[in-house]
Every structure is written in structure tokens, then in C-alpha cells.
């Protein structure tokens, strides 16, 4: 299958390893990506916190670009994903809203029809590639590795019509972890907010929320956590040393993108998965499971 790829700003910078590993594993799973031409920032939470129409127009421009190319949109960053699907699903149901969004495009050659679908890589792997195919492709099962499936917030919330997973008790990442031979930790805080959206505006709150997740993960004997979100990753991986400092303790919990975990099991080299870009060292995992580096 072929799909329009919308990396979003994070995947070009602070979440480079998410971009690298997403491209690598989807190539291995026969999903062809065509990056959308000249895509723009989705506006994230900043757009709807400053101007409502802007929060619809910014995602819509990207969807219009995908429509021109005749492709559905794949958005790995859950914040981009939610901004795109919320705009698109609302415009599909409400012709007046669609018209209003197009009014913001007046004077440009953009035309938005709300005619394509917005997808997430977790959804693609579960429902298009399929777990059977994923299992067939596993070269190095991640045996005995205890992994926390951390869903965070907007991957599954707010509930979307025909969503690939439940908002209250999601299981898609659990299934992926099992399929690659690892053990999903039954994690009661799997959808509890890590606080990372407040990373700049209110770091103390973020540190308190993220610490609660680590305490629980440690208590349950986890070897690592996985996430699908660049912002969660920034908080849990990037700011882990700040949390250690604030509470004067050692956490030392590798936090991987779920695509990096899959990549390890598919036998892709750790360099290609960007496992050397995580701030908390992943070398133990790499030593145990990675193919020889090239």
C-alpha cells in the first residue's frame, strides 16, 4: 500500500529517531510512504489556544495537499494526528464548516474537500499490515523483555468514530509488544497524562506527573517503556535526568518509540533506528537484541 506521509515538525528535529524508525519498519512491512509536498505545521495545541479557525485551517492545508496527490494521510505524531482527524472528521460531517475552512483559503490555489482519511502508524500496522504479517517478519524475537505500553493521551483520545482502539483501555500497543516476542506490562497508568505539554510553561507539574509513571513502571519490573508520541518522549526520555535530580533518585528507564522496538525485532540495525539518539541509553537493549551495526 501507498500513503501520504506527514512527518510533522517534531519528526524533523527532536524526534528524528521516530522518523527514521517509522520509515525503516514501514519499508520492511511493504508500506510505501510519499511525503506530502511543502506540508506545514499542524498548529498543535497552540493554534486552538490562540485562534479557533486557525486550528482548522492549518491542518486543512495539509489534507488539501494530500487530496491533490490522491493519498490518505499518515501522521505518526499523535498531536498532529488528532489535529488532522478532528478537522477532517468534523468537515466531513458538516458542509458549512467545510465551506468556512475553504473561505480561509480565498486567494490561494488550495481547495479542501475532506475526501481522504487520516491514519496513524499503529492503526496501519494493526489493520492494514496485520499482526500475522508482522510476526512473520520478526527475525529477532524480544524474548523476556518487559515493556510498558504507554499510550499517553491523544493517540486514543478523544474517542474517534471507528477508532482503531479504545479511549479508556487501549490494547493495540500491548498486541504489538506480544507480536514481537516481548511481554507487555499490565500498566494501570497507560493512558495517564505524562504532563509533557507543560514542559516549557510549567515544568514542575510535568516532573511530578512523569515521575508517577516511572515509579509505577519500576514497581512492575519494566525493562523499558514505549510511546508513539514525540512530546511524551521529550518528557520521559529527554527530561528523565531532570526528574532524577528533582527527586534525588536513579530512574534509568529507556523510553523507545514503538517503531524502534518493532525495528529491533525485525533485525534492523540500531543505527538505522536511531537508537543512539535517545537520551537515556538504550545500549543494554541494543546489546541484547540488535543486529550487528553497519
Amino acid at each position, binding site marked *: 500500500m501507498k500513503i501520504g506521509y506527514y512527518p510533522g515538525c*517534531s519528526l*524533523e*528535529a*527532536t*524526534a*528524528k*529517531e521516530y522518523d527514521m524508525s517509522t520509515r525503516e519498519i514501514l519499508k520492511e512491512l511493504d508500506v510505501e510512504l510519499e511525503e506530502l509536498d*511543502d*506540508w*506545514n*505545521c499542524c*498548529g*498543535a*495545541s*497552540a*493554534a*486552538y*489556544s*490562540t*485562534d*479557533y*479557525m*486557525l*486550528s482548522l*485551517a*492549518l491542518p486543512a*492545508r495539509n489534507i488539501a495537499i494530500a487530496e491533490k496527490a490522491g493519498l490518505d494521510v499518515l501522521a505518526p505524531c499523535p498531536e498532529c494526528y488528532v489535529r488532522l482527524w478532528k478537522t477532517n472528521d468534523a468537515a466531513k460531517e458538516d458542509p458549512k464548516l467545510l465551506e*468556512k475552512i475553504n*473561505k*480561509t*483559503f*480565498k*486567494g*490561494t490555489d*488550495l481547495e479542501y474537500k475532506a475526501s481522504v482519511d487520516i491514519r496513524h502508524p499503529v492503526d496501519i500496522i494493526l489493520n492494514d499490515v496485520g499482526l500475522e504479517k508482522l510476526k512473520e517478519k520478526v527475525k529477532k524475537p524480544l524474548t523476556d523483555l518487559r515493556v510498558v505500553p504507554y499510550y499517553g*493521551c*491523544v493517540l486514543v*483520545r*478523544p*474517542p474517534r468514530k471507528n477508532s482503531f482502539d479504545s*479511549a*479508556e483501555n487501549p490494547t493495540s500497543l500491548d498486541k504489538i509488544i506480544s507480536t514481537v516476542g516481548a511481554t507487555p506490562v499490565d500498566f494501570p497508568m497507560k*493512558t*495517564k*497524562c505524562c*504532563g*509533557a*505539554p*507543560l514542559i*516549557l*510553561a*510549567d515544568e514542575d*507539574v510535568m516532573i511530578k*506527573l512523569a515521575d508517577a509513571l516511572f515509579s509505577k513502571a519500576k514497581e512492575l519490573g519494566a525493562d523499558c517503556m514505549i510511546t508513539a508520541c514525540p512530546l511524551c518522549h521529550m518528557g520521559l526520555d*529527554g*527530561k528523565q535526568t*531532570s526528574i532524577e535530580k528533582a527527586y534525588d533518585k536513579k530512574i534509568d528507564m529507556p523510553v523507545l518509540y514503538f517503531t524502534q522496538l518493532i525495528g529491533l525485532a525485525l533485525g534492523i540495525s540500531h543505527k538505522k533506528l536511531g537508537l*543512539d*539518539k535517545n*537520551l537515556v541509553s538504550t545500549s543494554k537493549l541494543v546489546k541484547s537484541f540488535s543486529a550487528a551495526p553497519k
Partner: protein
Amino acid sequence: MAEVMAQVVPQQTIKLKDCDPNFVKEVIKAGGKNAHICFQCGTCTAGCPTVYAMDYTPRQILRMVNLGMKDKVLQSGTIWLCASCYTCQSRCPRGVEITSLMGALKSLAIKEGVDVKNIKGPAFYNSFIDIAMSNGRMFEPMLFLKFAMKSEGSLTGAAKAMMKDAPFGMKLVMKGKMAFVPHKIKQSKQLKTIYENIKKMEGESE
């Protein structure tokens, strides 16, 4: 729970003359969707991960919005502590889009130029949108710089804040995860046109 209970504001008389009956309409227009159908069950407050740090709980904010207590709502710390996690919105038995409502309240506070001590939310969102609209894509070094300037209000304050975050920034640079030059999209003019159209549309409907 004790923490939350301790923060419940003491009972006070709400004077109608201090309330703005049009406030809820204004909020709905700003993206607050269906704020008026809240029946005050408190499910939003029960699930909120940041409520412990709020001055008013989400349920209280909803009541205050519907009573038209505009000034108190827009000056509350609560709206800036909303992490947009959508837990309240997902669980609301009335289907109130509470996260969207918090976004709408933030946008109104920003538009009214509300300035509350120690609240850095407006500085963050304004910096973010400035960069997104001029370049078309985020550029983190500029975001840190702009945010520090806006939130600290002085060059020395900004420099101090930047120094504090410098070790983290350096780590990102070392890992090749921080760009040095911004990426400007080819059609950045389109964004300018879109922004102008939106301003015009807002002017027309008032």
C-alpha cells in the same frame, strides 16, 4: 483528594452585576462548542491529572463560564494548567467538549491580553504560533528564545532562563536533534493569506 478539597474556594455571593450574560456565547464562538449543557456532575474534575495545582477545578470553571464570570475565568491559573489530555472530554456524560472549551478560554484570555503573574502559557502559545505562521514549520531554538523573552519580560531574565535550559539544548544538539537553520516552507505566503482571511472573517461576523 485532601489537596483538592483544600483548594475549594470558600462560599461567596456571586453578584449578577459582575457577570457577563454574553460570555458563554463568546466562549462557544471561540471553539467552546457546547459548554452550556454541563450538568455539574464533576467527572471532569475527578479525572483531571493537573487539578491538584489548579485554583478552580474544571467543574467550577464550567459553572463560572455559564454564570458569565468572565474576569475570574480568564484570570484563573486553571486554564493554563490544562495539558489538553482529553480525559475529561472523553468521559463527560453530557458530551461537553471540555478540552476544546479550555482552548477557547485560553484564546480569549490571549486576545484580551490578560496578564497573570507566573503564568507562562500565553508566552508559550504566542511564541509557537509566531514561528509556525512565519516559517510554516517549528524551529525549536527560536521557540526557546522567543518563549524566554516573552515569559521573562527582560533580556537578563531571558538569558538566565536560557542558561538553565542550555545543558538540555546541548544534549539535543549533540544527538543531531536540534536544527541550526529554520526550514521555511515554499508557500509561506499562503499562510499569510490564510491568517489575513481569518482576521477578516472574524471582523465580519461581529
